């Protein structure tokens, strides 16, 4: 088999070589040189530029029409809604128009001013007014983008002064997520990575009594709806990134430090499943799953790892369940506290 492939390659090379010799010989007969660009070439290439532009724009529109409905559903968090508004404003008023307009001028001129037999170029070395115009207009546009962007950024990243917040710690390790809730005292216990063990998976400092009532969850993470959630993030080993795309939330988990992100979920998982956009999206997903003989799924919020962290980076996920505060409290009450799980066995 390999011999045959090799033989075929050798034959192809010989055939190609012969073909080239014929072309080279016939080239000697012609007077014009091949590399010189003629008016006919310019005409063809200029027209091709125009055709390409139309195709390019149609390709864009086709993609947007077809794939926009596969984009993430509208934000399910308070700040996320603002991000969506800002995103749409930037996309619809700056990015997409500039993309179309500048590409249009580029390809239109490339077509219009193709060098035909009697085309002459105009000597036009500079024009201060024009140059000033396209320095100042982008500067103004960017000023608006900066002002609105930073306004939201400062709101989103400011420290929480909410007394009624829910604190949750996300703990990342190769290749899974855990969550830690502070328990009744509302305080997360101190940690010490040297004390990590089978029964102390997030490395709580067993000398710190405030951590005894902490609750560690290595399953679906539950959150109450319409309450401010303050996430603290830690990592056991390498960099990870806690990415909660449906809430427009993301922050890296860095070994040796605690990072934070806060948000208010506004829709429960059940509400999301009833959302018409989500329904049609899930229908599309389940249609595709059916083709692969996979079972249909329902919508779930997800926590993904979004920073390369090793071989199973692509499978580092955790389901998030947003529910009413009552359901959340009922769930939380059923979870085991740290001291009942670990401290007694581990203390020397």
């Amino acid at each position, binding site marked *: 088999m390999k011999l045959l492939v090799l033989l075929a390659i050798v034959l192809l090379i010989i055939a190609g070589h012969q073909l080239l010799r014929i072309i080279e010989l016939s*080239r000697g007969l012609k007077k014009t040189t091949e590399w010189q660009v003629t008016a006919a070439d310019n005409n063809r290439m200029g027209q091709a530029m125009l055709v390409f532009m139309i195709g390019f724009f149609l390709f864009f529109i086709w993609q947007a029409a077809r794939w926009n409905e596969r984009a*993430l559903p509208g934000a399910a968090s308070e700040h996320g809604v603002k991000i969506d508004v*800002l995103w749409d404003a930037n996309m619809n008023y700056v990015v997409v128009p500039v993309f179309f307009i500048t590409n249009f001028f*580029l390809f239109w001129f490339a077509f219009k001013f193709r060098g035909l037999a009697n085309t002459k170029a105009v000597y036009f070395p500079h024009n201060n007014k024009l140059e000033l115009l396209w320095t100042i207009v982008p500067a103004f546009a960017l000023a608006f983008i900066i002002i609105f962007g930073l306004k939201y*950024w400062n709101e989103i990243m400011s420290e929480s002064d909410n007394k009624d917040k829910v604190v949750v710690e996300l703990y990342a390790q190769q290749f899974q997520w855990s969550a830690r809730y502070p328990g009744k005292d509302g305080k997360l216990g101190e940690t010490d990575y*040297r004390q990590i063990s089978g029964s102390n998976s997030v490395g709580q400092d067993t000398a710190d009594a405030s951590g005894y009532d902490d609750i560690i969850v290595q399953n679906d993470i539950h959150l109450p709806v319409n309450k401010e959630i303050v996430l603290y993030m830690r990592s056991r080993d390498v960099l990870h990134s806690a990415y909660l795309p449906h809430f427009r939330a993301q922050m890296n988990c860095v070994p040796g*430090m605690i990072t934070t992100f806060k948000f208010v979920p506004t829709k429960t998982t059940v509400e999301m499943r009833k959302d018409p956009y989500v329904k049609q999206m899930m229908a599309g997903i389940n249609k595709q799953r059916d083709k692969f003989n996979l079972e249909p799924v329902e919508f779930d919020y997800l926590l993904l790892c979004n920073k390369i962290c090793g071989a199973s*980076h692509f499978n580092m996920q955790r389901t998030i369940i947003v529910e009413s505060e009552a359901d959340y409290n009922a769930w939380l009450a059923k979870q085991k506290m740290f001291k009942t799980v670990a401290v007694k066995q581990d203390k020397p």
Partner: protein
Amino acid sequence: MGSTTNSALEKEHLVHHDHVHHHDDDHEESFITKYVFSQDHKTISRQFLITAVIMAVIAMTMSVIFRMQLAWPGEKFAFVNALLGDKWAKDGILDPNMYLALVTIHGTIMVFFVLTGGLSGTFSNLLIPYQVGARDMASGFLNMLSYWFFFISSCIMLASCFIDDGPASAGWTIYPPLSAVPEAIPGSKLGMTMWLISMTIFVVSSLLGSLNYIITVINLRTKGMTMTRMPLTIWAFLVTAVLGVLSFPVLVSCVVLLIMDRSFGTSFYLSDIYIGGRPLDNVGGSPILFEHLFWFLGHPEVYIVLLPALGITSEIIATNSRKPIFGYRAMIGSILAIGFLSFIVWGHHMYMTGMNPFLGSVFVFTTLLIAIPSAVKAFNYITTIWKGNIQYTPAMLFSIGLVSSFITGGVTGIILADSTLDINVHDTYFVVAHFHIVMGLSAIFGMFAGVYHWFPKLFLRMMNKKLGYVHFWLTLICAYGVFFPQHFLGLAGVPRRYYTNSNFPMFDNLVDINEIVTIAAIIGALSQGVFLFNFFYSIFRGEKAPQNPWNSNTLEWTTPVANIHGNWPGALPTVYRWPYDYSKPGKEKDFCPQTIPLEDGEHDGGGH
């Protein structure tokens, strides 16, 4: 003072040249000194180019392999097994660790070896002496070392692909602790050590080259070649070299600290790590320090890649529009502004790292500022072709392609520079689409344009035009076919560097997008065969080049069609005008080389 230095150096060069001229008009140099350890800028340029072409083919093949995995996860591909063997592709299914390794080495080779070493190495070497009117680089010897360090570092990088644990696989940004702790991923064993050594040697090469470029441009300009008469290529190469000299040493310090952490037990980047069933001793370091050091190089690096491409296309667009480049001074101004600003925007890669958010907002401001000079450049290109007489050489096609990709990729930069909007697309395919289009496509289009345009000076022959046309259209269409749909993957929240998207039901409806991307990538990769054939065939059998095939104004086209040491057989040319006198009213021809004196009362374009 400047002028005396110049003329003294020039005299010295002339003397040196005459000396050589008398003794070895023909071949007194041996094969080794002429083709291998050559100190001639033209030969070194060719060496860089051919090395870069080989590296590019390797990196491109890697991308096809991992793209096939993404489109058809779990499918068996005999050719993947044939290339990677049973260890990394058992039955033709790619191993997850090898997937990350391919992604890492693809990025490293493309960014550093093709678009930095290859692009600057080829065209700075070829064009700086030619276009400023110098006999050669300021130091031919250092220039030769620059190439051979580049060669060694390429060899080490490639060799790392053949070792037992596989090559570095922590992403091209090699963030610790993943890259620092061997237990974290197999690629962080010997593979990462080799990566770090290779990159250190690469930086040596880059520094030797850059210093040479800067000194040559500043000191060895021929008579009359004032700074405002230099072609924009030279301005771009000069600023690129300055960026390289200022930023690459920071990468070395970053790498040295990582080597210390890896091999000598220090804790610059490591703290509180529990891995492989035991706690590590390292306490007090921070990966964020690494990220700062890395991106202090990493961001200027983007412009080290991009500026030479922009310089090359400025020259090609003016020549082939038969019009002066629009806003020559504004173009120089934007190159300088981009160069300066590129040093204070690195933090936009780090909005989500846990860096102080206030610091993030400063970087939002500086990053969006850099959009202004970039916009000026794009608009100036478009105005240059307006009312031109466009000659569609393959080089011109690629230059137009560059302007398109520079715009298309640039506009999404406005989104990513905005920290608020970055929250949800950071590290997703939206970013992959953005930087591949604005940096990858633009730079590689610039490189193709340069090869087609200066092939007559590189190899004294012409490339085939029709094959060039075919190559351009296939490449442009496939390139957008690969990278445009990736925006939509990003909008669906797909993270980059995932071995497969099939583990998340939420990505199941994106299968067809991934297939389109991969099919475009395969066709695009195959189309490069047209270029490779044209390139290697024309080196040996292309039509003989005339002296000035594109009717261009710059000095390289006044040299004879021969590879002579010292570039000009007689005295060096004198420059009387800027390089963009195309279609100047009152002239007989539509071009007017820089060596033609100004007529009485004629105004030099560059001086305003």
